[in-house]
């Protein structure tokens, strides 16, 4: 598969858009609107007019100003455009309807929508949503887009382990076999490979269908140790210890018996139908020195492997980070509390551990003070929704980010939050139900995720151009490039 942006439309008949375009019975199928509208909202299906693709509509104001407003041009007054009342039911504080819709659009087209939507920030009233870039009035230098480097280094220790550079400053968060459909996993893995970055197996084992992506895969060692074998650890170039997950920090989990299908059971070497548990803590790691031992263990199995330590954001996250560094980790991955996951107690998501926006500068500053910041790759996740979140996280002090939910949204997740109920995801993403999973094909999914990353990358390049930076690495810790709406 050649890597390029390809328009990849929704699997559904209707994509939800900001505007609702209604075609009345007065329509005589004259197709005048097809000519009028430059955005492709109207089209003819056979002899009749098709149901308008209203998600492409940019709204009356813009159209009027450009003299291409179909409603006014329709000779029969058959058209009507209003703000779509449905979007009230869509989205939430963190992922607003605008964010969902603009992400869908980017996944479809590989670029930002023409529609006036807030594609950079959500509506949570704090953190990333209150940060803005502070651009110089005139960029200090004009840098052509193709000269801008968005790659980051994952092994900064300079030891004998693999040297790995990824093409974009993000890789993918782990989603376990059994928690998402096979095609979702492969789609994501393929997109990661095309962008020369990494996918992650999650904690549910290393399914064979991911073997072709070995070089671009991270495998997880999590508290349940499911499916973790020497063989899987030796297969990859990066191993991730999942100490905690931001969305359910400090909590374990269980996979209910009826979710342990024959395939899931085989992968986790368990028995079909018997519930599976992950304990809260790593019972072999109760202290920093245990942690060091744990890292040494993985290196004993695969001496060249890079070790990433995925931790949540407790009050002493800076100590945890430096402890991980001293224990031999190459990557310290901070997972903030507002990120996504299959299913987690609401109380945990809301209350436990600090948002990533606080954790990044705290850890960055501490690592700088300790003089080891340039020896460790700091990765942030847990609430990275947009290209601008990526940039802000880096400006706050991260080297790069891990993406999870955004990729799901690219596959048309609506964040209905019902990942685990009943047969699983109604949109065929986070499900093992074969009938539901059929909704997604790998080609479609990989292209959608690829497109999203493409759009993100071009936004990143655009911001770097405005800041006059040649490389994303220059942005790390540059809080002077940011301003916060609550302060001056």
């Amino acid at each position, binding site marked *: 598969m050649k890597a390029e942006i390809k328009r990849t439309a929704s699997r559904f008949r*209707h994509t939800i858009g900001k505007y609702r375009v209604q075609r009345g019975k007065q329509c005589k199928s004259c197709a005048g609107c097809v000519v009028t509208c430059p955005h492709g909202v109207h089209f003819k299906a056979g002899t009749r007019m098709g149901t308008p693709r209203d998600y492409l509509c940019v709204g009356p104001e813009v159209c009027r100003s450009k003299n291409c407003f179909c409603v006014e041009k329709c000779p029969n007054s058959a058209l009507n455009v209003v703000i779509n009342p449905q979007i009230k039911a869509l989205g*939430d504080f963190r992922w607003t309807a605008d964010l969902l819709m603009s992400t869908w659009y980017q996944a479809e087209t590989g670029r930002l929508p023409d529609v006036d939507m807030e594609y950079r920030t959500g509506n949570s009233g704090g953190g990333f949503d209150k940060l803005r870039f502070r651009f110089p009035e005139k960029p200090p230098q004009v840098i052509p887009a193709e000269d801008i480097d968005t790659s980051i280094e994952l092994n900064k220790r300079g030891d004998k382990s693999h040297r790995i550079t990824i093409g974009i400053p993000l890789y993918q968060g782990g989603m376990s076999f059994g928690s998402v459909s096979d095609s979702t996993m492969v789609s994501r893995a393929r997109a990661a490979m095309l962008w020369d970055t990494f996918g992650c197996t999650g904690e549910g084992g290393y399914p064979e269908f991911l073997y072709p992506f070995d070089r671009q895969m991270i495998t997880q060692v999590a508290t349940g140790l499911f499916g973790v074998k020497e063989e899987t650890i030796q297969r990859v170039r990066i191993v991730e210890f999942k100490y905690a997950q931001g969305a359910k920090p400090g909590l374990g989990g269980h996979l209910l018996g009826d979710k342990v299908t024959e395939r899931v059971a085989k992968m986790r070497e368990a028995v079909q139908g018997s519930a599976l548990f992950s304990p*809260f803590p790593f019972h072999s790691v109760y202290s920093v020195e245990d942690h060091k031992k744990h890292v040494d263990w993985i290196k004993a199995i695969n001496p060249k492997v890079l070790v990433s330590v995925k931790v949540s954001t407790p009050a*002493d996250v800076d100590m945890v980070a430096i402890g991980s560094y001293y224990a031999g980790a190459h990557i310290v991955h901070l997972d903030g509390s507002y990120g996504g996951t299959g299913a987690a107690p609401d*109380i945990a998501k809301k209350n436990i551990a600090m948002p990533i926006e606080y954790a990044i500068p705290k850890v960055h500053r501490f690592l700088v003070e300790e003089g080891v910041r340039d020896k460790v790759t700091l990765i942030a996740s847990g609430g990275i929704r947009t290209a601008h979140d990526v940039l802000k996280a880096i400006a706050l002090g991260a080297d790069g980010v891990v993406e999870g939910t955004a990729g799901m949204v690219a596959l048309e997740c609506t964040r209905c939050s*019902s990942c685990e109920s009943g047969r699983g995801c109604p949109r065929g993403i986070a499900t093992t139900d074969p009938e539901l999973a059929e909704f997604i094909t790998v080609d479609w999914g990989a292209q959608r995720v690829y497109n999203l990353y493409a759009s993100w990358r071009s936004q990143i390049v655009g911001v770097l151009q405005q800041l006059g930076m040649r490389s994303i690495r220059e942005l790390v810790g540059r809080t002077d490039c940011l301003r916060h709406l609550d302060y001056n």
Partner: protein
Amino acid sequence: MPKKYHIKPTPTAPRFMPVGRSGIIDWEEDCLKCTTCVKKRCLYDVYKNRAYDSQTLEDSIDYQCKNCFSCIQNCPRGVLSKTINPEFLRMGDAYWKPDIIHNTWFQAETGKIPVSGAGYRGPFSGPGFDAMWTDMSEIVRPTRDGIHGREYISTGIDVGRKQRYLKFDASGNVLLEMPPLVEIPLPVIFNVLPFGNLGQGILLSMAEAARQIGSLMYVTPATYGAFLKPFKDHLIPLLPVEGLDLDAEILEGVKMVELLYAPDVLACIQQLKLRSPQLVVSVRLPLDPKARTIAADLAHAGVEVIHLFADYRGNEFVEGDAPRFVKDALREIHLHLVNVSVRDQITLIVSGGIALAEHLPKAIICGADGAAVDLPLLIALECRVCKRCVAGKSCPVSLQNIDPEYGGKRLVNLMCSWWSQLIELMGAMGIRDVRRVRGEAGRAMFFEDLERDTFGALFSNR
């Protein structure tokens, strides 16, 4: 783990169709009658199960729809659309938001922890308890694994006066008489309800639940009746100092009593203790700017329990100025009591604004030993916080007719869920005894501090 530590839930469906969040609009006139209608393909069968309750004017689909948009997006003619049910948005008030009510209903129905996928959906932070995060242990300390009783995490507290230290005789026996203590397995007491049609049904529901989980409930002379007698072990009569009748029936056989604070409360306590030395006597003190000094005086004077109460939205009682929220006022009083070396000798109960399970550990971190819960109990019994009853109007969910057995189950379910959630948060903190959470500000993060240390340091001086 011994079974005596468990709380058992019983799924108990609501009597009335709950108000749902969703609002599906169906222009069925345009329907093409496809054979594979999107309605039939609904994963949750909400169309199949659709029912309309003409009593409450609620449509079941609003409560059952999970907002996946699949039907909306897939219907060929686009006959379906959806938005939000305005009735849902109208529920409750600025503090008791619709989400809190929904969340409580779910727990009262199932006894389970509300779980959802795809990450957090709420605001970054908020007022009151939302300006606070609890901590977790990681790498340097393990988390504890208490959920489902995998590991024993104690949530019990002792209500009463504690000794600063003990004296032993030569053979190691405790020398002094121990002050009486009432043990409750959960740091929750059922408070007097702020409003609502307090028929016998509701009181009996509360009493039944208190009995089942081994906790306590407050009862006032106005609502007390002989029907509560079988529950005397679980009652805390709440009495005014003035005209205290030591022989009142309400006092018979109870383990604990609470007096409304008045300047002469100490004399009153003495009378009560003289009559029944094994009675734990508490003082209910309004949370206002004077509470700090009074609490310290009472503690020094040997009072066993102080119950600080804020209004039902968690605000302190203060004229004019913006009131402090219960967590801030409580924290100040707790620290003051530590400074004057009496904190560990008294039990501090707090009430007002405790709406969600997370408020429990948060209040405890801020310095309470336990909390008294009010409105959530009523909500568990299906209250919609419409406050019609305050105006003397009928209750849309007929709370006056509630069956104590049914109500008891709903309340036990709610407490079971709160208990599990308390254990989750404590497990994450790495603490195995709720008594050790008390005042443990090291296991919490406050919005003001984080904001000041992070963004304040980065951005405020530019």
